[in-house]
């Protein structure tokens, strides 16, 4: 374990936490729209933190730039996908839950 590894570790651990949170949200939240919310936010944050951790560890600017670009692409794609899924679901007549269940 080098110094860079130790610096990367907290980011990787935090990313694992957010991935877990996203999965729990996907499995436990009451309706489609809240589940989308869990995915689009928690998971992309998890990916971002993983990218930061790996970029630190790589110690190479070129690799770091590539990793960050990958994350930005994933952000654009996944936010658009989530929008499309929500829109498609509304057209199908899926309604969000209201109030407590």
């Amino acid at each position, binding site marked *: 374990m080098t110094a860079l590894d130790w610096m990367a570790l907290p980011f990787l651990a935090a990313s694992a936490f957010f991935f877990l949170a996203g999965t729990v949200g996907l499995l436990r939240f009451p309706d489609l729209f809240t589940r989308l919310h869990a995915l689009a936010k928690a998971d992309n944050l998890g990916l971002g933190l993983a990218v930061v951790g790996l970029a630190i560890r790589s110690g190479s600017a070129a690799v770091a730039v590539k990793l960050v670009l990958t994350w930005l692409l994933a952000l654009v794609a996944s936010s658009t996908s989530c*929008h499309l899924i929500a829109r498609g679901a509304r057209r199908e007549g899926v309604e969000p839950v209201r109030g407590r269940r």
Partner: protein
Amino acid sequence: MTAGLALDVLLAVALPLVGLAAVLRRDLVQSVMLLFSLGVLLAIAWARLGAPDIAMVEAALGAGVTGVLFLSALARVGPDDAAPRAASVRVALAALAAAAVAPVALAVEALPRAFEGLGREVLARVPETGATHPVTSVLLDFRGYDTLLEIAVLLLAVLGAWAARGGAPSPRPPAPGPILTAAVRLLLPLMVVVAGVLLWVGSSAPGGAFQAGTVLGTTLVLATLSGGVALPRVPPWVVRSMLALGFAVFLAVAGATAASGRALLRYPGAHAAGLLLAIEAALTISIAVVVWALFERDPEERRAEGEAGGREGEAA
């Protein structure tokens, strides 16, 4: 590396279970989603198996276009309303499937745990080809005739799909909406750049015509789905020429090498790298248009209908 082995076990167990679920679920949309999930898992499995070339194509097809093809077909065909078969019949069919694959499992079991294969021979002779990446050498040189015929198969499949779709009423897709349009406008040039990079590095690293072609083809499918955003309009004959380009260039090189007294597709050493790149570039364009054409209708027919919104094209 125990975590790696645990990951292998997880994937190896999950893959057939996901496949079984895709087969057994009643709802077809669900089956297709499971198939798509399987594509992502397979991409990780290819990565674990040291096959990044295959992982790239899987990421574009298995986790992309395949699902699109199924969803498009489902929108036209409708759900499976057949009554489920009797439990005894299902058990018998499962036993039949198990009996059919049991000999394969036994054959795999009988194979030695370590086997050199052709890896050493390939690596020894890679310098004779125009590429330094072994998979590219195998694909375009050692087994070039095989690849040549496979491109012909792709063309035949496109002709078949176009013929089967002939005379179908055009679906009127709903408007893609501003967000998808904007995202596609943003991503499209990047995808073309990525495909170009994959093509360029293909001679020395994982990448090449099949990877670049499938990425570009998926890009065309995405652009067509979003109502033809950022796609140039080109006449049908251009589309057809691009479909045939890869096969034509490959065949011409094969003919030229045969005519110059060499073995079929044995490239002259001095020009090997250039010839390979030319073939790969032509193949990339053709594979991209093939992937798009497998999903779309014959553009000639669209034009004959005088359809106002008919757009087709190629961004490369």
